C-alpha cells in the first residue's frame, strides 16, 4: 500500500514537516490528539497524564511485551485551540535527543476528510538527523534480536 504520510526533511535544517490527509472529519482527527484513552490506543503507549489545555502537561510511558518500561516522554502544551492547533514541547526522558518543539495544525478538507500538518523543530541539525535515524536503528536492532533468539534456541 502506498504511504499517505509525507516527510519533508531538508538537508542541513533542524526541523522537519510531516503531513498526512485523513479519511476522517476534522473533529474526529482532533479528538484523537486530545482524549487520553484514544491517544493510548493509536500511539500504543500508556498515558500517565494528558491535560489538553494551555499550560497543561503530558507524560506517556511505553513498555515492551514483558511490561518493562522502554521509555517515557513528557512535554508542556503551549497552545490548545480545538479543531485548529496544538503547540507543545516533546522530550524523551533520559535520552540525548533534547527537547523538541511541535506545532500541529489541523485542517478541514471536506466534511469527511481532514489534514494534519506537523512541524517539528529540534535543538540542532545533528539532533534532528539522529531522531530520523532512530527507526532505522530500531529496525536493525529488531533484526539482531530475532537472530539472537534463533541462535539461542539452537544452543
Amino acid at each position, binding site marked *: 500500500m502506498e504511504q499517505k504520510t509525507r516527510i519533508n526533511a531538508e*538537508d542541513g535544517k533542524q526541523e522537519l514537516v510531516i503531513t498526512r490527509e485523513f479519511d476522517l472529519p476534522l473533529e*474526529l482527527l482532533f*479528538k484523537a490528539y486530545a482524549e487520553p484513552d484514544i491517544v493510548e490506543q493509536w500511539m500504543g503507549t500508556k498515558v500517565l497524564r494528558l491535560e489538553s489545555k494551555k499550560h497543561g502537561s503530558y507524560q506517556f510511558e511505553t513498555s515492551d511485551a514483558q511490561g518493562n518500561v522502554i521509555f517515557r516522554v513528557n512535554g508542556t502544551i503551549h497552545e490548545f485551540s480545538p479543531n485548529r492547533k496544538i503547540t507543545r514541547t516533546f522530550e524523551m526522558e533520559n535520552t540525548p535527543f533534547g527537547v523538541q518543539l511541535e506545532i500541529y495544525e489541523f485542517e478541514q478538507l471536506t466534511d469527511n476528510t481532514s489534514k494534519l500538518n506537523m512541524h517539528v523543530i529540534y535543538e540542532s541539525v545533528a539532533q534532528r538527523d539522529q531522531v530520523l535515524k*532512530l527507526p532505522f536503528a530500531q529496525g536493525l536492532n529488531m533484526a539482531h534480536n530475532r537472530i539472537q533468539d534463533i541462535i539461542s534456541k539452537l544452543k
Partner: protein
Amino acid sequence: MNLRRDVFQAIADPTRRSILLLLASQSMTAGAIAANFDTARPTISKHIQILTECDLLRQEQSGREIYYHFNPNKMKEIAEWLMPFAKMWDDRFNKLETIMKKYKSKK
C-alpha cells in the same frame, strides 16, 4: 571506498549537490565539470574525489580521458534511509484512522 566518508556528509555540501545534478543527465570529465563552477579547479577535484569515494560517482576510462558518471543506486539508498521513519508515522496514522472510524460508528 574510503570508510572515513559518510554519504550523508557528501550530499550535505551544495557544490557537491550541484555536481550530482550536472552529472544526472550526462557523463563528464573533471575539466568539463570544473568549467561549470567559479571555484578553483583543485577544490572541484576534491569534491569529485569525495563523491567517488562515496560511490555516488563512477569513473570510466575512455581513451586518455576519465569520465565521471552518476550512480543512481547509491542515491536510492539515501532516499530509502528516510523510509523507516516515514513508515513508522504512516503505521501510526493508519491506526489512528482505523480507531476513529470505529469511534464514529459507535456514536
